[in-house]
């Protein structure tokens, strides 16, 4: 029974991984497969209903919504993955140091983490992106600054648990240096939960990036991005709902795939959950 269940989880993992790889490859080669120039404006073709050459219709400037959605995929997917890599690396490092050394180092690092945790959700990111001025790079800086804390918390509490294990004590007694213990003995043991948290975070990073772009603080026009496309389209919700509908649909589907993938990775690596 247990074996059967694990097998099912493994199959689900590979199916979703395949889907994600497919999404990544399509978004990378978007430039070659899109039917129209995503940035070419044609006032004559504005707000056309989805059909034929324009499967998702055209927007208010006569740009092909399908081509723009495809181009936006690359920005959304890769910047969220990059964000997760940055924040998880930094957060884990802080958590490892804090948990391993304990004492005053721990107190200082955790109080600093508390301060960053004191800003609700997107508030800090909105302010940072706003002050730095728009652009994808600044939006990513803003989200990184407010997004590393959960990794620090998790890495710290896992480190605290593992530090008590006999083999760590044995390693300390046999004279392995701090660096060696942290990176060779502790890190591999907490990597599982970090990877689980990181995959579960990809979709929330995607939501943050598109949220900032939606507010006009992220990717700048005319570059295509889902959030900014949606915010442009809202104005024409009554006459051309497809401008908003298709980027929203594709974004939600992508988020669902990444969420399912995160759940599956958790089931795979952390079956106790």
């Amino acid at each position, binding site marked *: 029974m247990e074996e059967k269940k694990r097998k099912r989880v493994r199959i689900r993992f590979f199916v979703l991984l395949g889907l994600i790889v497919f999404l990544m490859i399509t978004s990378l080669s978007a430039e070659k497969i899109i039917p129209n120039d995503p940035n070419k404006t044609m006032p004559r073709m504005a707000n056309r209903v989805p059909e034929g050459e324009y499967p998702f219709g055209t927007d208010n400037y006569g740009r092909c919504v399908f081509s723009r959605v495809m181009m936006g995929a690359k920005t959304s997917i890769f910047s969220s993955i990059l964000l997760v890599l940055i924040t998880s690396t930094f957060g884990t490092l802080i958590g490892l140091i804090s948990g391993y050394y304990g004492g005053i180092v721990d107190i200082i690092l955790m*109080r*600093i983490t*508390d*301060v*960053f945790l*004191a*800003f*609700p*959700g*997107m*508030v*800090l990111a*909105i*302010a*940072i992106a*706003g*002050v*730095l*001025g728009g652009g994808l790079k600044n939006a990513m800086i803003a989200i990184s600054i407010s997004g590393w804390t959960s990794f620090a918390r998790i890495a710290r509490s896992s480190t605290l648990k593992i530090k008590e294990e006999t083999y760590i004590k044995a390693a300390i007694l046999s004279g392995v240096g701090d660096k060696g213990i942290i990176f060779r003995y502790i890190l591999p043991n907490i990597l599982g939960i970090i990877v689980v948290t990181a995959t579960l975070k990809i*979709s929330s990073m995607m*939501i943050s990036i*598109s*949220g900032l772009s*939606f*507010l*006009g*603080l992220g990717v700048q026009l005319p570059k295509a991005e889902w*959030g900014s496309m*949606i915010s442009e389209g*809202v104005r024409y*919700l*009554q006459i051309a*709902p497809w401008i*908003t509908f298709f980027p*929203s649909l594709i*974004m*939600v589907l992508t*988020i*669902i795939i990444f*969420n399912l993938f995160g759940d599956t990775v958790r089931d795979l690596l952390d079956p106790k959950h």
Partner: protein
Amino acid sequence: MNRLKKFFIQKCLSLVFVFFGITLLTFGLMYIAPSDPVEMYYISHNQSLPSEDVLAAKRAEMGLDKPFIQQYGNWLLKFLRGDMGVSYVDSIPVRDKIVEAMPYTLELAFLSLFLTMAISIPLGILTASKHNKWIDYIFRLFTFIISSIPSFVLSICLMFIFGVWLKKLPVISYGNEKGIILPALSLALTMSSRYIRQIRSTVLEELNKDYVLGARGRGVKESVILYKNVLKNTMITVVTLVGISLGSLLGGTAIIENIFVWPGMGKLALDSIKRRDYLCVQAFVVWMAFIFVFINFLTDLSYGLLDPRIKKSGK
């Protein structure tokens, strides 16, 4: 009782520390902002930039030539007295703007929280009591999908359904009696998807406990067990959820307010960002963090009141 007191004092101390951290970080952020307030002042008043000497004199007048720590100290002292400065852009005291916008944000946040409870507590209990039946599956699918929809997309969906399609509710909230419904509902639906799942699993856990078996054995009706005993024990989960989701709720209001043109803090912040009125952005960040930290502090304290086990151990 002594332990509870110690717990309380510890919490208060960390609250003070976090308060300083918030103000320092926010002030530092605005300090490194790549635009000069003095130049902003002239530009926004449609005046041509005077010579560098005049600019420097103006900077000195505003205390901008002093070292960082001194500037921070001055700002903090003023802030504690309720003086958040005067906007460089339109010369209105920031305090007045915040006082005007804050009630709108709080109203929206509390109404959303109330709606969330009203939706998710009954549904959480329902899905748990119908565990693995079709109604449970439908709600599980539903909550999974909703939780994958960003709040701004969800609010546009609601806008489309109720505003454009059914033409029942106003799409622009400001100055409209029913205007708050759609923004509150958007926030509440996003949160409910998380709440329903958590409440469901807590209720399921409770239903497997010995006291429920005992009550069933004594012939107590299932509905009485659910609504009297289990619900009471589920409240701790609900309080925890409020603490966890508060951050995304307050952050969420910032986005939602801009969609529905609801004149709260988030709308004020974005308008200020567009006009480079950084004093106002600063006040927005600090106040949102204060509200967040303070309500979290209250949730922490309420554990002690709700859970007798914690009260005893003072943990």
